[in-house]
């Protein structure tokens, strides 16, 4: 099995963890994605995009269940990521499944708005 080459972020307020079982890629975000996390998140998503293509995965799950807050700068990183997926040829595009936490009010509206950027590619689940 080819392994996922994705560095983990581990800071007091924001952390990421990625797994790959040979079929599914899953990225778990936790803490506060604020201005301090912006560079790390941007770097993570850029690398994730490259890894998904390298591994030929058709779907990635982003688990936001433990992500307490994301500011607009970090959200922009997701918008850029989604744009990058849209810019791929149709046969290279992959789906993004967000696992949301209904207890986090900020996720409810903003994830649905995010889905509107690429309704064919994004799925929101609880």
């Amino acid at each position: 099995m080819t392994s996922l080459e994705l560095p983990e972020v581990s800071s007091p307020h924001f952390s990421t963890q990625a797994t790959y079982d040979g079929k599914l890629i899953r990225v778990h975000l936790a803490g506060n994605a604020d201005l301090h996390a912006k560079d790390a998140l941007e770097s993570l998503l850029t690398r994730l995009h490259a890894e998904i293509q390298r591994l030929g995965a058709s779907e990635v799950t982003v688990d936001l269940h433990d992500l307490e807050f994301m500011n607009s700068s970090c959200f922009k990183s997701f918008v850029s990521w989604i744009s990058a997926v849209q810019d791929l040829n149709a046969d290279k595009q992959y789906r993004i499944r967000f696992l949301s936490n209904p207890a986090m009010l900020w996720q409810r509206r903003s994830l649905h708005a995010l889905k509107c950027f690429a309704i064919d590619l994004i799925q929101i689940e609880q």
Partner: protein
Amino acid sequence: MHPQTALPDEFLARFRTVALERLERLEAGWLQLTQSGDEGNLAANMRRDLHTLKGDSRVVGFGDVNLLCHKLEDLLTLAQLRSYQVPEDFDLVVTMAIHFIAMLLRKRVGQTVGGIDLAGFVQQMDDVLREAQAQKPQPIRPPSRPPSVLASLRADRLSRRTRHYLAAAATTVWLEHAVASGRSRDRLRDVWLALTETLSVLDSEPLAPRLARHVHTARQLARDLGKQIDVALDADELTVHAEIADALDTALLHALRNAVDHGIEDPASRRAAGKPPAGQIRIRVRAGAERVELAIEDDGRGVDLVQVRRRAGEMRLLPPHGGELSEAGLLEILFQPGFSTKSRVSEVSGRGIGLDAARAALAAEGGTIELHSSAGRGTTVVLRAPHSGRHLPVHRFDATRGGLVLAAPAEWSVTLEGDSAAAGAGAGASASASAFDPVVLLLAPGTPSEAGGRAPITLRLSKGGRVVQVRAGGAPTPETAERLCATSDDHPAEVVSIAGVEALLLHPDVLPRKS
């Protein structure tokens, strides 16, 4: 809506480039607003950017962009009401809306917009707006950085006398800096800049509170008169020089009072004329590059020119030989002091001190007032005033030393004294013994003046029988000066800017007269 394909590619490319630049500014501005609040004209500039993008997108047929801009305007308006203390999802949706628009703009070039859920996104914007409207405003958080001293000064309007004292001090510092050298010169310049910035803030005032007050007063007046009005305020947010704010305030007061008292009919008369019972008054405020314009439009009965002609005849204001006045001429009579079409004086009007007072207030600050009227359809009063009220025509000339530029108000006539006319043309000449060197005089009164590298000439400034002689390093040229920190009339000078160059404007009235 124009079909997009009908527009040249280069036109669309230009639109796209400019639109993306606007979005960049909007995003940066939104971030600043939510972090630091509104400072300066940031919010107003953003609204202009967004409104222009909205209009442009309609012209080029980007209906989806136009729709999102419109929704974004709604969100920004509410955010402003909440002092930009908005919920997190509100903040996120605004940011995403800006990116959504950018995505629509980018994808337009030969690409499908499939997969983009515009309706869904608009729904999210509507929902977040509705929820935010339903919520009570959050308590204002303390700003992330302490408010500047200047910001707190804005609330206090210093007396003109105090401002003049500060301006005189600033002028002295500028003069010291102008003749200093090395680090002292830099330090003095820093002090000068700090002082002028303070003065600029002290001299400025936002228009919005005044407009709101007038709208309230107009509604109250209408109620008192048994009339109904709807007042719409369509205003750019702007700050103007305090004296300009005063002038516009005076003019707006009279224009609105006239609209309610003379223009808008009572509900029964309006119904009879086929109009809705409530009169419509629209106040539109626009900031141009150099001037601010206020238009007050009403849909009332318009000016009764027959009545104006009759009253003008009674007041002997018509041409003496019975000549006919044009419509414009009759409207101009409304600006005559003491003129009123009302034969009885009421609490509201009839004394004939309305439009002439408005015109006088504006004229004192370099502004104008226009009146347009259409019988049965309404009246529009347009007030225009410079932003700063600080421009004035001058004679510009070089000082004899220090590379300084001097100026004198253009209301003073200036001639080259005696042989110095030849000096102005390049020949050498000695200065008149009775002339003074302004720089020497202002820095060290009583010090004998010294010519610099160039042979001085003497300028003779005269106005109304008063004559002042000034030594100068060159012949005068007509220019327009911007007053940077106006001193009082009894101060000998102030600093101005002429074509971007700082200069010392002399006040000849208080300079030594020709002996």
